[in-house]
């Protein structure tokens, strides 16, 4: 390498410190004796310095906060209105459960109100089933059975309520769907 001029690639590898020990030593020796290669090496190094001084984008102070905000916003959007309805339905259901489970003595209008509320809840939840979520069915049945269990404790009655709740849910669901279809067909 001391006799022949250095290749462009070797000069680059030398400048980048990528040559092995021996070729590196030889290149260093050649650069001392050869003005041509020394000049080419200087150009190589200059290009590196120029590139390093280019104004690339710097860190953006607000970026972390912007990313977090964007993620939160998207997360909020992803919670569709249906899930708010499911949530509301469950809330009503738990309220009804509390009324039945507590030692309040209800009669007449009070009891009718609670039963109507529970049936309404079941209907609301069956609408949620339009989302094709089997979990909804499970919750309806479970909630109804829990409510009845608290009230009476009879296994037969429990099974009866379970079936009744499922039937009401299916019926309400079918009714709502047929209504929706009729509305859409008339448009």
């Amino acid at each position, binding site marked *: 390498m001391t006799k022949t001029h250095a290749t*462009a*690639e070797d000069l*680059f*590898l030398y400048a*980048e410190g*990528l040559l092995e020990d021996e070729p590196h030593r030889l290149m260093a020796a050649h650069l001392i004796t050869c003005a041509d290669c020394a000049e080419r090496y200087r*150009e190589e190094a200059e*290009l*590196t310095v*120029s*590139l*390093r*001084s*280019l*104004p*690339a*984008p*710097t*860190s*953006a*102070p607000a*970026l*972390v906060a*912007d*990313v*977090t905000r*964007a*993620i*939160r916003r*998207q997360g909020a959007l992803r919670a569709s209105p249906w899930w708010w309805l499911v949530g509301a339905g469950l809330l009503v259901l738990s309220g009804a459960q509390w009324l039945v489970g507590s030692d309040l003595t209800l009669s007449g209008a009070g009891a009718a109100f609670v039963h109507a509320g529970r049936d309404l809840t079941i209907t609301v939840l069956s609408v949620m089933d339009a989302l094709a979520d089997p979990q909804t069915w499970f919750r309806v049945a479970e909630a109804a059975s829990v409510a009845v269990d608290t009230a009476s404790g009879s296994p037969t009655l429990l099974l009866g309520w379970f079936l009744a709740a499922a039937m009401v849910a299916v019926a309400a669901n079918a009714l709502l769907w047929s209504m929706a279809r009729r509305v859409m067909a008339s448009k």
Partner: protein
Amino acid sequence: MIEPVNPETDERLAARSARGDLRAYEELVARHQRLILRIVWARGAWSQEDAEDLTQETFVRAWEHLDTYDPSRPFKAWIARIAGNLAIDRHRADSRRPRTTDIEDMEATLATSGPGPAAATIQNEQQRELLSRLRELPDHYRQVIVLRFLEELSYEEISELLDLPMGSVKTRIFRGREMLRQRLRPDIVEGEAR
């Protein structure tokens, strides 16, 4: 750059993020935002503003797809790949309509951007020329040059980041530099009106 005080590895932070821990994710964003800014910049987001937009988009998209991240692989490489793909898509879409952002825009935004040595304005004609030629380089050459000489990553890091063998990284950087040098030489540049 200040060393992160938090000793948690990227990969553990990513695992926490995947479970919905936004605080852990903020740490990851803080750690890698500069790299991502420069990757998207190298891929054609030529103003600070464009680069910031794409960087934000990269991190939001990565958050949504954290379940696909394999913690046995470096997080840095994973996020870099998302950024690269996103920047290519964006650049492709942009090239179909007339470009409005160019070096002058970049100059303006950099002149008004925050402190830091790299935030300096384009100092002279030579730098402006270099930036124009860098911008003209084929994508795969430009990216490795930016990672090596502007982001100052090691050859090992670039190899890992781009999932390329070391030999290919060296060759690409060498060829990219040669191409750049030829374009910078006024006697070789043909058909230039200047």
